[in-house]
């Protein structure tokens, strides 16, 4: 005989203000099978859990229902409590009377009535629950970091320092990412390369780290603790093991007109090139679109001059398959395309540039060797106007609805650096709001205004146009209620940032969820900010949301801590809510295996006893519980109903349906 206990939580006033919790608990007392029903202010608290444990023991409960917040919140908590009291943790069901009831309904009568139905539904289900035991699966002690920017580098170093093998997969020819392109970093103004390149070198020299540059993720199989990843190493037409990075090939290459993407296309580079001086690996790569030999078959000059014979025009993409226990996604960002913002004249005027382009123009290793010269004529710009929020906070459909977070600070940095280096330059900044939350951030911005005399104009720019060789920036000055036009030599646009587009494919392969802006979704905005909802996948840096370098590095280290926590385990508990076939009913028809995304179903020939001492060998399905993820696709495909899902059995769901429909 079932002995069910019901526990109704007030959640302070979160539930109790709209649901008459005492009445719900009272009603449940007379439900068939219920032997105990109570209500308490905070069931999830130590005392609340104690109450549950005590009741389980005192009343010999065979199953419990907790009417509380979403199971996504505290199911694990209550399962643990039940287990501590000697009840199988899977004999616990949650009735979500907060998110699905008290928080969305105002009328107490209505909400209470619904809460009663929801609790009854959970009782109906729990009566059919069966004790389940979690299985175990092994953990591969190796991590994969996707993306070799500062986020990926930091995560990899931290994981490797803990003694685990790490592979960094970077789609570009070098690690370093966006940070390698920056000149100085706020709010301390230290040189970006000076703090990043030592970390890059650490990665290269770390015995536990393997850098797979110029490589992409091709396929992902498996699950937490045991991912199997196929990596495509793109042909770079240079043997990595032989190239010494002497750069003679770059000098000799006759095809020198390729856009230098590292310098944001502000200058050119040869077809064979090393992206920048401190590249890791310091190995050349050939752009096949630009290489004369690869396009026409004629040339081969680099091969002739290469002293170590590293050039290999025949190189093909290769595929590596490796096993990992955990995966960190750190795919980073890019500035948005400005094609929907022609009012700022980016396409028509060379001297309208983005902030990232300005970084390269200011960088000592950049196209102008760090001298600020305007792209159109190489002159020193005397009046520079910055425009903030280009495409950020834009709900019109042209841009992004979110705040890009870093622009206010880097614009202050740029303005300050320009005034510092070229005091005769006039600097204006059009802004909507200046957002500077962060340690020493507002102080930094105020220095730009107070110490460096940067002119901040509250208002947006309506139009940038070229007149008599000057860039006319026409915008609002809302403080003075004026329309102003500033004759400028250079206009810098703080373009909104967006996740690197390749993240979509990676998210699909990992079955990690992605939001409407293509940012990867974290498992919980506050409490699990670096975990993807997909177990074993962690998120670092801009791929999860706009953030600056300090935040990115913190998040990367947090990821590393999570990964280390996973990799130190030898085995993982697996979800016991998996599919199981009733072999007596299985036809062996193979329909279920056809829909299994994990390959968890195989078929075996099994001997069955018939009546009268006879036996029969039949083909029946067999589910690998370590591989099954418990989606249930097979259960519906199975025509005989032989396949069922533990924890979500057909009978359980049917009983829930009945409980809800009963009027």
């Amino acid at each position, binding site marked *: 005989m079932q002995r069910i206990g019901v526990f109704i939580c007030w959640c302070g006033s979160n539930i109790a203000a709209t649901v008459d919790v005492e009445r719900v608990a009272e009603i449940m007392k007379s439900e068939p099978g219920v032997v105990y029903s109570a209500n308490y202010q905070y069931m999830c608290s130590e005392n609340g859990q104690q109450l549950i444990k005590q009741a389980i023991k005192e009343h010999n409960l065979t199953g419990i229902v907790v009417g509380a917040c979403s199971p996504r919140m505290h199911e694990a908590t209550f399962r643990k409590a039940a287990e501590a009291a000697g009840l199988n943790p899977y004999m616990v069901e949650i009735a979500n009377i907060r998110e699905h009831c008290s928080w969305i309904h105002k009328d107490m009568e209505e909400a209470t009535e619904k809460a009663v139905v929801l609790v009854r539904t959970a009782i109906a289900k729990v009566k059919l629950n069966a004790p389940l035991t979690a299985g175990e699966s092994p953990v591969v002690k190796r991590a994969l970091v996707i993306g070799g920017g500062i986020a990926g580098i930091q995560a990899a170093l931290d994981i490797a320092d803990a003694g685990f093998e790490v592979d960094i997969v970077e789609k570009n020819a070098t690690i370093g990412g966006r940070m390698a392109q920056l000149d100085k970093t706020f709010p301390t103004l230290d040189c970006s390369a000076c703090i990043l390149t030592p970390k890059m070198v650490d990665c290269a020299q770390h015995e536990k780290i393997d850098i797979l540059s110029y490589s992409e993720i091709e396929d992902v199989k498996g699950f937490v603790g045991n991912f199997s990843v196929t990596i495509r190493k793109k042909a770079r037409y240079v043997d990595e093991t032989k190239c010494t990075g002497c750069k003679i090939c770059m000098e000799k290459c006759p095809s020198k007109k390729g856009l230098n993407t590292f310098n944001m296309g502000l200058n050119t580079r040869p077809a064979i090139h090393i992206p920048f001086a401190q590249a890791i690996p310091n190995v050349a790569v050939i752009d096949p679109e630009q290489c004369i030999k690869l396009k026409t078959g004629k040339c081969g000059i680099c091969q002739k001059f290469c002293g170590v014979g590293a050039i290999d025009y025949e190189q093909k993409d290769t595929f590596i398959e490796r096993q990992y226990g955990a995966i960190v996604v750190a795919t980073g960002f890019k500035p948005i395309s400005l094609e929907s913002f*022609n009012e700022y004249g980016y*396409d*028509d005027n060379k001297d309208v540039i983005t902030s990232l382009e300005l970084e390269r123009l200011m960088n000592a290793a950049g196209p102008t060797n760090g001298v600020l010269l305007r792209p159109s004529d190489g002159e020193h710009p005397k009046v520079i106007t910055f425009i903030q929020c280009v495409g950020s906070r834009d709900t019109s459909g042209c841009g992004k609805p979110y705040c890009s977070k870093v622009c206010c600070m880097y614009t202050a940095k740029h303005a300050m650096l320009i005034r510092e280096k070229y005091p005769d330059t006039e600097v204006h900044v059009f802004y909507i709001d200046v957002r500077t939350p962060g340690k020493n951030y507002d102080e930094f911005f105020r220095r730009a205004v107070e110490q460096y005399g940067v002119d901040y104009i509250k208002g947006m720019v309506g139009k940038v*146009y*070229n*007149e008599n060789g000057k860039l006319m920036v026409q915008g609002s000055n809302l403080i003075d209620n004026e329309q102003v036009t500033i004759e400028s030599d250079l206009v810098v646009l703080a373009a909104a940032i967006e996740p690197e587009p390749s993240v979509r494919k990676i998210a699909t392969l990992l079955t990690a969820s992605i939001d409407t802006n293509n940012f990867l979704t974290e498992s919980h905005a506050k409490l699990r900010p670096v975990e993807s909802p997909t177990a074993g996948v962690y998120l670092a840096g801009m791929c999860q949301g706009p953030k600056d370098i300090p935040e990115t590095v913190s998040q990367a280290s947090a990821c590393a801590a999570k990964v280390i926590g996973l990799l130190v385990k030898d085995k993982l508990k697996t979800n016991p809510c998996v599919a199981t076939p009733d072999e007596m009913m299985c036809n062996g028809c193979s329909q279920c295996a056809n829909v299994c995304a994990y390959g968890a179903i195989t078929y075996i020939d099994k001997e069955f006893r018939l009546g009268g001492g006879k036996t029969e060998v039949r083909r029946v399905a067999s589910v690998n519980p370590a591989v099954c993820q418990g989606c249930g696709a097979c259960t519906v495909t199975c025509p005989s109903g032989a396949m069922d899902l533990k924890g979500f059995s057909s009978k359980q769901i049917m009983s829930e349906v009945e409980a809800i429909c009963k009027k």
Partner: protein
Amino acid sequence: MKISYYPGCTLKTKAKDLDVTARLCAKALGVEMEEIENWQCCGAVYPMATDEIATKLSAVRALDHAKHNGGKLLTLCSACHNVIKRTNEDMKTNDDIRFRANNYLQLDEPYGGEAEVLHYLEMLKTVVGFDNIKKAVVNPVKRKIGAYYGCLLLRPSGVMAFDNPENPTIIEDFIRAIGGTPVIYPFRNECCGAYVSLKNSDLPKQKSKKVLMSAKEKGAEEIITACPLCLYNLQVNGEGTLPVKYFTELLAEALGVQV
């Protein structure tokens, strides 16, 4: 082919040149513009107020006529195009306006935005094709020409869907097709201010001078437009900075069509 054509008030009076040259050129390019019967003035300005119905009805009548006569309605005057296209969008997407307009008009079958409003330039681009125009040119217009779009053709871009509102190209493509060199200048999509010229003569003057100066600075030798109001304003208030013509006049010149 035949297309229903809505000329509008000004093209029958002060802007006859636009109407006449457009028809002749279309004919030369194999398109017959069939003026719809009993058209009424579109009102010359789109009423934005959501409760304005009566002022949109003449546009709806013209649209309904086009719906039953080939489905396309050709316009030429920028103002008519703006009014009719935006009214058509209302009839398509605004339940309230559609209901009330139909209630008023009592057509045999309610009108729900089925017709397609096509500007003469769009017709040249999509129906005739600029490549075909290029082939038909006998007298290439070898001049540096500035396109003046003004406001009505382009905005609001969500509804007009005419071209990129900040960086339009259709008139420039047209100029290339007739053998000219387009001059791109920043004020080609700025309003010339003509609408307020009865109340305020200063603003239209300033604005038209600004437009023409901007074009002249970038090397334009003449300006073309599709709007009679802009043409008037730029000619009268532009103080002769540059000659201003209808684009169809240049088309006629290029095609060798005798007016």
